[in-house]
C-alpha cells in the first residue's frame, strides 16, 4: 500500500467513525438521560398515549393515500417517456427540498379558509385547517416524495421486456401491472413506503402550522414533545422521543425484515432491481 493510500484509508475510516458517532450519540443519549422506570411511567401519561394514537392513525392514513395514488403515478412516470415526464417526476420530489414550514403555509394558501380552494371547500361545508384531515394532509404532502421517488426508480429499473412478454402472451394492461410490474417492483415500493411512513411519523413544521396542536385530536408525538419541552417536562419529552425512536426504527426494521422473509426480494441481480434498494 502506498503511503498516500494509507492516509486516505485512515481519513475515510476516521470520517466514518465521526459520522457514526454523530448520528448514534444523540439517539443513545435519549435513552441514557431517562431511567427505564421513568420512561415507562412517562409513557403511561395521558398526553403521550393520546399523541401516539394520533400519530399512528394519521401516519397510517397518509401512507395509505400515498401508496394508493403514488403507485399508479410512479408506474406511468417510471415506464413511459412522454413530453414533460421528467419535469413531472422532478416536480413530485419538490416537497423533499421544501422546508416543512413552507409546506404548512402553502397548504394554508391552497386549502385554508381564505385559500385558493377555500371558497369551493366552504361550498361543500368543508373546513380543513385545525382538523385531523389537516394533519393527514400535512403528513401526506411532506412524506409523498419519499415513496414516489423510490417507486419511480423501482418501476424504471424493471426489465421492460418482461412487461412486453406478458402483453405478447395475452395478458391485458391491468393484469400485466398487477401480476408482473407490482411483484417486480415490490421491494422498492416497500422500502419507499417505509421511508414515507418514518417521515410522516416525524413531521412537525407543516402540521403545527396547518393543523394546529390539540391533544387527542391534532397533536402528534413530535408536537407533544415540543410542548412538553416547553412546559419544562424534559423527562416527558425525552420519554416520548424514545418512544418515537423505537416506533419509527421498529416499524422500519420490521418492514424490511418482513419484506426479506416473505421472499419478496429479487432472486437475482439480473432483474435489474438495483436502484430500488439504494436508499433504504
Amino acid at each position: 500500500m502506498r503511503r498516500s493510500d494509507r492516509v486516505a484509508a485512515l481519513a475515510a475510516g476516521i470520517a466514518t467513525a465521526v459520522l457514526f458517532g454523530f448520528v448514534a450519540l444523540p439517539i443513545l443519549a435519549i435513552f441514557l438521560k431517562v431511567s427505564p422506570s421513568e420512561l415507562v411511567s412517562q409513557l403511561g401519561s395521558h398526553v403521550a398515549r393520546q399523541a401516539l394514537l394520533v400519530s399512528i392513525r394519521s401516519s397510517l392514513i397518509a401512507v395509505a393515500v400515498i401508496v394508493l395514488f403514488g403507485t399508479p403515478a410512479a408506474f406511468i412516470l417510471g415506464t413511459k417517456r412522454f413530453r414533460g415526464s421528467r419535469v413531472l417526476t422532478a416536480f413530485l420530489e419538490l416537497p423533499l427540498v421544501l422546508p416543512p414550514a413552507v409546506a404548512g403555509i402553502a397548504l394554508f394558501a391552497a386549502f385554508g379558509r381564505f385559500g385558493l380552494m377555500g371558497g369551493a371547500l366552504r361550498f361543500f361545508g368543508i373546513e380543513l385547517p385545525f382538523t385531523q384531515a389537516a394533519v393527514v394532509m400535512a403528513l401526506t404532502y411532506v412524506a409523498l416524495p419519499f415513496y414516489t421517488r423510490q417507486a419511480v426508480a423501482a418501476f424504471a429499473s424493471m426489465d421492460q421486456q418482461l412487461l412486453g412478454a406478458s402483453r405478447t402472451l395475452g395478458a391485458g394492461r391491468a393484469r400485466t401491472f398487477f401480476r408482473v410490474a407490482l411483484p417486480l417492483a415490490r421491494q422498492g415500493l416497500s422500502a419507499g413506503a417505509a421511508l414515507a411512513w418514518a417521515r410522516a411519523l416525524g413531521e412537525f413544521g407543516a402540521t403545527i402550522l396547518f393543523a394546529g396542536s390539540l391533544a387527542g385530536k391534532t397533536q402528534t408525538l413530535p408536537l407533544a414533545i415540543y410542548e412538553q419541552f416547553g412546559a419544562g417536562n424534559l423527562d416527558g419529552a425525552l420519554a416520548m422521543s424514545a418512544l418515537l425512536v423505537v416506533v419509527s426504527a421498529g416499524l422500519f426494521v420490521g418492514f424490511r425484515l418482513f419484506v426479506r422473509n416473505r421472499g419478496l426480494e429479487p432472486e437475482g441481480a439480473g432483474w435489474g432491481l438495483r436502484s430500488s434498494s439504494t436508499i433504504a
Partner: protein
Amino acid sequence: MRRALALVLAGLALVGCSKGSASTSSHIKLTVLAAASLTDVFPKIGAAFTKSHPGVTFTFSFAGTDQLAAQIQQGAPADVFAGASATYGDQLARAHDIGPYKIFCTNRLVLVVPASNPAHIASPAALATKKVKLVIGSESVPVGSYTRTVLDNLNSVYGAGYSDKVLANVVSNEDSVTSILAKVVSGEADAGFVYVTDSLSAGSKVRTFVLPNSAEAVAFYPIAVVAASKAATVAREFVDYVLGPAGQAELKAAGFGPPPPQG
C-alpha cells in the same frame, strides 16, 4: 486525494482564523431571549441602546416564555432574559440560571377576532354559545395560562360553566402569542386570546374586545441578566436601560402598562 485533503485543511484553517478575528474585535453582541409578545418593541429598544452604546449589537430570540426558560435551563448562550410571566422568572432565579429579576412592564389579555369576523362574534359571551374556532396558548406558555385564569374568572360574569364551554371550542393550543395572532389575522381562526399589545400591533386586521374588569389577569414581565452571560456588565446596562425612561417610553408607546411600584 491529497489535493482534497489540502482543501479540507485550508478550510479548517480559514474557519479557525475567522473565529480568532471575531473574538479580538471590540464589538459586543448581546443575545436577548425575549417573550414573543416583545417581538415588535424590543428591537426598537435595542436600536436606541446601540445609539448610546456604539459597538453593542443585538441578537434577539423571540419565543414562548416557557421555551425560553427551557433553553436557558439547557444552557443556551444568552445574556438577557425577558419573559412574560413572573412564574418563569421565579423558577429561573431559584435555580440560579438568572440573576434577581425586576418587573419591567405589564400587559393585559384581550379577545381578538379577524377584521372580517367570520363567526360573527359580538362579545366574549359568544365564545360559549356557539361553535367557534378558538385558538389560545398552550398551558405552559404564559399567554395560555393567563387565558385559562381569565376564563375561570369570567364564570362570575357569564355564568358557571362558561370556561368549560369556551375551552371545548379550542381548536389549537399554540406555542406562542405570535402564532395565535397569526392564525387570527389570517382569518383561519375565528377568535383568539392575545395581549392588548399584540392587538395594537395587528392594527385594523383584527377587532378587539376588552374583557370585563373583574376578569383581568395582568401579565407581569420579568427581566434579568442570565447567570452564564459572558457580557454581564453590558447586559446589566441594557436591563437598566429597559427599566429606565427611554425603554419605558418605547414600551408605553407599544401599549404595555408600567410595572407596579416596587419596594
